[in-house]
């Protein structure tokens, strides 16, 4: 047990008591929250107060069963996506859904109900979970699935760890024809063209996403690179498997001023024009395709000690392209955006009660913490609420409870599930204190 400073990926740190060990079943007794690799950006994996005992699942990482015929895996919640990919990709399997970083645990993937480049085809990770073993707030242990305690199952998927400690997860890996990706990338000149290109790509490609230069205004607003991909067929793929990339570490914490509008603009310009051809088809390794930022460990140091947040929202299809254009306009005029801005087509809403995606367009942008950040998030949230969209709790640190209630019609069902399974709100986080009024 260690009294320490627990940190989130956005460099927010809070005091807490972290329990670390291999025996998750015994460690999770009488504790308030589980956390995995600490990759959620905001306060969702941080304790509600300094004396709360938080379980780190990282060492509970055993595979308990694997069926090579069906690809079904059952594993402890701390098994990381790094390990899943390393072990199963050479055998022709890959997770049905992967987020933009591999430094996540199975438990974290369920709690955040992560989505990936294939959301328009495969939905979120939770759609592929068959069952979970959980320790509940009353310290009992139950198994839940779509047919066994379905209310608990669906509230846990995307439930930010507030229904219970996820001990084990069973899900099915997908077969892949080769360990390589056939990728098509295309330079796109503005936001309208981007939305049209995403719409054209979705039926043709199982995986799509785009990078946007969100510092551009005027006619070039929303210009960027659209990337679409599929697993390469054996005859297209190189014979040898991809080589593991060298592990680079961002060596120092940059000063706060290092990432500023000028340096961000220069980076964006270089990134955009590096794509010299209008359209490129190529075979790439999965790592740079799925996890480009994982190539540099501790890349969050680039933001300096002030830290950063990621604002990620989804605007429903019904709001139309005009809403996306207006959102981009508002984002660029409010300022604060950094080089990382990602746009993605989402498919239909999943069954997780607080699962983020809904059918429409998701936009994610990193923003350094500044005195203006609360105002920027408020203004963006007001727009998202008016458009009928919502934000992603895994990235969030600044949304106000009133705003979250306004954008989340499923909240009452989530509260009803919490009332049933944890009436005394023993499971809580800094985020649940902020958004749901749990006691600190």
């Amino acid at each position: 047990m260690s009294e320490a400073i627990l940190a989130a990926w956005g460099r927010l740190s809070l005091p807490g008591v972290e329990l670390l060990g291999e025996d998750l079943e015994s460690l999770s007794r009488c504790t308030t929250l589980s956390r995995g690799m600490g990759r959620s950006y905001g306060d969702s994996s941080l304790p509600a107060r300094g004396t709360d005992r938080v379980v780190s699942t990282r060492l509970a990482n055993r595979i308990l069963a694997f069926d090579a015929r069906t690809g079904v895996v059952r594993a402890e919640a701390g098994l990381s996506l790094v390990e899943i990919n390393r072990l199963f990709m050479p055998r022709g399997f890959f997770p049905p859904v992967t987020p933009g970083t591999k430094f996540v645990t199975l438990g974290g993937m369920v709690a955040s109900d992560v989505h990936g480049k294939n959301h328009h085809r495969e939905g979120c990770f939770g759609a592929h979970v068959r069952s979970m073993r959980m320790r509940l707030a009353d310290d009992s242990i139950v198994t839940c699935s779509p047919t066994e305690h379905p209310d608990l199952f669906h509230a846990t998927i995307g439930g930010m760890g507030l229904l219970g400690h996820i001990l084990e997860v069973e899900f099915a890996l997908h077969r892949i024809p080769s360990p390589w990706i056939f990728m098509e990338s295309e330079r796109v000149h503005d936001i309208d063209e981007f939305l049209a290109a995403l719409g054209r790509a979705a039926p043709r490609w199982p995986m799509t996403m785009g990078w946007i230069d969100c510092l551009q205004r005027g006619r070039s607003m929303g210009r960027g690179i659209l990337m679409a991909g599929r697993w390469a067929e054996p005859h297209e793929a190189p014979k040898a498997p991809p080589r593991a990339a060298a592990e680079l570490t961002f060596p120092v914490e940059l000063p706060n001023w290092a990432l500023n509008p000028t340096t961000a603009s220069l980076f964006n310009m270089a990134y955009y024009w590096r794509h010299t051809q209008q359209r490129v088809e190529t075979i790439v390794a999965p790592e740079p395709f799925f996890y480009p930022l994982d190539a540099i460990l501790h890349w969050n140091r680039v933001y300096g000690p002030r830290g950063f947040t990621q604002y990620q929202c989804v605007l429903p299809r019904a709001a139309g392209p005009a809403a996306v254009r207006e959102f981009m306009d508002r984002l660029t005029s409010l300022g604060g955006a950094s080089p990382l801005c990602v746009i993605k087509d989402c498919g239909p809403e999943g069954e997780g009660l607080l699962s983020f995606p809904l059918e429409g367009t998701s936009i994610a942008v990193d923003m350094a913490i500044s005195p203006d950040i609360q105002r920027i998030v408020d203004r963006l949230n007001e727009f998202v609420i008016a458009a009928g969209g919502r934000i992603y709790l895994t990235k969030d640190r600044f949304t106000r409870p009133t705003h979250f209630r306004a954008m989340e019609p499923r909240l009452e069902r989530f509260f009803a599930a919490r009332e049933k399974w944890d009436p005394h709100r023993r499971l809580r986080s800094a985020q649940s204190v902020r958004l749901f009024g749990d006691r600190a």
Partner: protein
Amino acid sequence: MKAIVLGGTAGMGRAIARRLAERGDEVFLMGRDAGDLARSAADLEARQAKNGRVGYAVCDLEKTDGFAAALDEADRALGGFDTVVVTAAMFATQEALEADVELTRRLLTVNYTNTVVFCEHARKRLLERGGGRLTVFSSVAGDRGRKPVALYGSSKAGLSHYLESLDHKFHAKGLTVLCVKPGFVKTGMTAGLKPPPFAGEPDDVAKDVVRAMVARKPLLYTPAIWALVMLVIRWLPRFVMRRIGF
């Protein structure tokens, strides 16, 4: 290799068992809890390069009368083992040990007497079949009498001494004894302690250990920087050791 890993369900033992299984070595697990052993065996079966069951047997370093039966079970499952890895041990802080004499007795017995007894059982079997590898985890804590690890360190000092003697005596007969001296490694055993500089990860330690086993080295400091750190510590004059907290 056909390897027994005593302590292979957790920490560095788990990491070594995985590394061996992924290399294609046959692994047999020993530990205190049958349920925990079954889960770790399933983990190795999913990871291993070869198909097949991973066997296990309950073996508790506090119960010497179970050692022979567990080794018999391993022999049957592996068709004769040629490698034994011992990572199991007890750890407690100096503060806890000073406050509880019974805990001290247990720790000294497990870490020295009973580990040596287990190694003697294993050593005899290995020599009967012409030799093999015996890899045992000692600690940098045994290299010099130090205030923060006076009791734990003394158990490891005795163990290191025994392992070096085994190497001297039986190397020519085909027994390769590897004494592993890890520095601070971030495992469940050290959870709650503030990691010092150069703290290692179990997977990195496992990589170093398997490499040293293959190269038939007699001594390994891991992470490697600890070889230099302990060289300095061993040469520090006594009046300095009395003053510093290390």
